[in-house]
């Protein structure tokens, strides 16, 4: 390296000189940098292979026409134009996905916190209730969705039968575009076990002295919750919201299974099947990515939708973390 450098400079081979302090310092810094890089390398490799490379590939493919055969050909912004202007299902999918992000995530967090609070207050049979509320989370999503589609069947399901007996309205659930997303939300709330466990752990971790001090100051149950519990568990709430948003942006299995079962599509007679039954109300962007990419083999358009999902996820997460100072406990 030094020889090449010297040759390029045209000065011939320099005489070996004692290393200067600056040179030693530089070498030390370089060694430190190499050491740091070595320690970081597992993450760097993982980040490059599993995030950076797919991200760059997705951006690249979104600018190409590619159906899986031959080489991709550059097509500029044609895929973006197609998705935003000529694919009405995209906007419907975006609306549905955002609905689920706002409503489903909020209700899951509130419900998970509520169940966690209830269980921490229970004096006897805590283990039983904990197990009962956690078990549904372990149910495979397909089986759980099929079971819900059966229970909520508007014609033969026991839920509507019971509602009818009580003289209450009988919604169409998965068969009614107004009720299909609320039905999916119910399903998500049934499998609340993951959030319940996290909230329980965080609630049990709130220092007892703070409650005692608040009580001495005359704080009632609501004030204790508002000024003691909430500030202590706010990082957990934030974590639940952020992971909930990211998970919901990938919402696929339950929506497609519910649409298929309620829509009466067996899908084995060569029949064309477009997910989203009824009337596109359960059609989410992740389904669109699969549909465009692996059923229509329009990889470019699929990459556009994937990038839209990525940008929304990043934006929502960044805003939430910035506004609430990340996962740090609140000073309230």
């Amino acid at each position, binding site marked *: 390296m030094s020889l090449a450098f010297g040759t390029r400079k045209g000065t011939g081979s320099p005489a070996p000189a004692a290393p200067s302090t600056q040179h030693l310092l530089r070498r030390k810094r370089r060694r430190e940098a190499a050491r740091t890089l070595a320690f970081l390398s597992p993450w760097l490799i993982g980040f*490059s292979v599993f995030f*950076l*490379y797919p991200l*760059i*590939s997705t951006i*690249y493919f979104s600018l190409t026409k*590619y*159906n*899986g*055969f*031959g*080489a*991709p050909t550059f097509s500029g912004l*044609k*895929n973006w134009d*197609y998705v935003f202007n*000529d*694919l*009405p299902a995209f906007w419907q999918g975006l609306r549905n996905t955002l609905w689920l992000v706002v409503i489903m995530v909020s209700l899951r967090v509130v419900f998970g916190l509520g169940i966690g609070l209830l269980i921490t207050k229970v004096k006897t049979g805590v283990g039983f209730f904990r197990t009962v509320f956690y078990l549904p989370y372990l149910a495979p999503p397909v089986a759980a969705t099929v079971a819900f589609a059966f229970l909520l*069947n*508007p*014609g*033969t399901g026991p839920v509507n039968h019971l509602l009818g007996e009580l003289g209450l309205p009988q919604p*169409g659930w998965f*068969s009614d575009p107004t009720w299909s997303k609320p039905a999916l939300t119910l399903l998500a709330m049934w499998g609340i076990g993951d959030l319940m466990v996290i909230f329980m752990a965080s609630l049990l971790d709130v220092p007892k002295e703070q409650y005692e001090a608040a009580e001495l100051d005359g704080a009632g149950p609501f004030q204790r919750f508002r000024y003691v519990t909430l500030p202590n568990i706010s990082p957990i709430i934030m974590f639940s919201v952020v992971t909930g948003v990211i998970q919901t942006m990938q919402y696929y299995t339950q929506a497609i299974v519910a649409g298929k079962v*309620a*829509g*009466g*599509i*067996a899908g*084995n*007679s*060569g*029949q*064309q*099947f*477009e997910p989203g*039954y*009824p*009337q*596109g109300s359960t059609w989410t962007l992740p389904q669109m990515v699969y549909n465009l990419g*692996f*059923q*229509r*083999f*329009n990889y470019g*358009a699929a990459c556009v939708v994937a990038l839209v999902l990525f940008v929304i996820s990043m934006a929502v997460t960044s805003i939430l973390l910035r506004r609430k100072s990340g996962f740090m406990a609140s000073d309230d």
Partner: protein
Amino acid sequence: MHSTTSRRGRRTIAAITGSAVLALLATACTGSNDAGGNDDSASGKDVTITFWHGWSQDNEVKAINDNIAAFEKAHPNIHVKAVANIADDKVNQALRAGGDDAPDVVSSFTTNNVGMFCSTKSFADLKPFLDKSGIDTARTFPSAMLSYTQFQGNQCSLPLLGDAYGLYYNKKAFADAGITAPPKTFSEFAADAVKLTVNDGDSYKQLGFMPLYHGYESTTEHFLGQYGPTYFNADGKSAIATDPKVAQMLTWQKSMVDKLGGYAKLDKYRSTFGEEFSAKNPFHTGQVAMAIDGEWRTTSLAENKPDFDWATAPFPVPDDQADSWGRGYQTGTIIGIASGSKKQAAAWELVKYLTTDTDAVVNFANAIHNVPSTFDALNSPKLVSDPNFKTFLDIAKHPQSGTTPASVNGGGYIVSLQNLGYDYESGKQGDLAAGLAATAKEIDAAIAQAK
């Protein structure tokens, strides 16, 4: 110091990005494999080919395996490794991935993807093979079947048995309602459907016919088979907004929905139906008195033995096309050769045997009760056929029976039309002309995008 760090940082980012782009370009430039027609199988060399198909039920798998065994007996040096229960998604992905485990011969249950198979050249053009073997396709295969196995002159697949759609009716319900013969026109059909409907509060004891597009085989393309529409103009643009037959069909279907109780009531009743391919099918259980379905239902009904007599007939036709009664929608299983296969000569021998050998076609049709896909097999005395099954053989032979044309993006246009159907039947879309125009635009954009 800061500037050195940021310069170094920029270099690092540039290096990572450069490597990623290089890696990306390297992986992106993987085209399809070279095709290989000469595998020396003709000179007697042992060759093993892989055949992917979608049949999964025991009797179906046995039937195709029997056919393969007969083929291997006739071609001792060609061995076939059959893989069952493969859907089109997997086929498409495997053909793109290529490699030694990719199939040489592929069959698909749906004809909708033929346009994609042909236009992407994932299936080899069979014309050279057909010419070499001296097979005149027009004299061998019924025209509708020949139509759905090619795309823009590229005969990249061949029919391997077919499906025809007709009317199934409950003879007991007909007798109870005083109906003496199956309807032939849509006005007769509507009158019969109303007569056969027995209301039960906000539900039904028996429904004459389930017209909703989610009512199993009551799909837009099956109904349109009775009209003979033009899906695409000569310039390749969607014709659904300009061919009045499409609007007529959608209007007719909506009128059926309204006559039989309205969308909400029908959809709630539909949710009580059991699985389509089971003994709980609403026609088997007597929940509906008439149904549009394929010829395979004759076997299911014979096996499940419902507690009523039933019969089949061609599905009714529009009143102004009464003379076309006897026609029906046709589709079927198709078979082709992967263009990436290096054993195409052996693969062709299998495809030729399965699709054109009369005994092979007849035996297979008898075993799985599908419509034979060659003229010789349709007219073969060995074909087992009762009057109910014969209805479908006649529909298959009818000159006005039709199918949906192949498209460059597969069945995307059918899905778009079906989505409009859902919106129109439910009342979400009230302006049919506007809906058709928007759907035609959507279809054209999707096709332009895929070209």
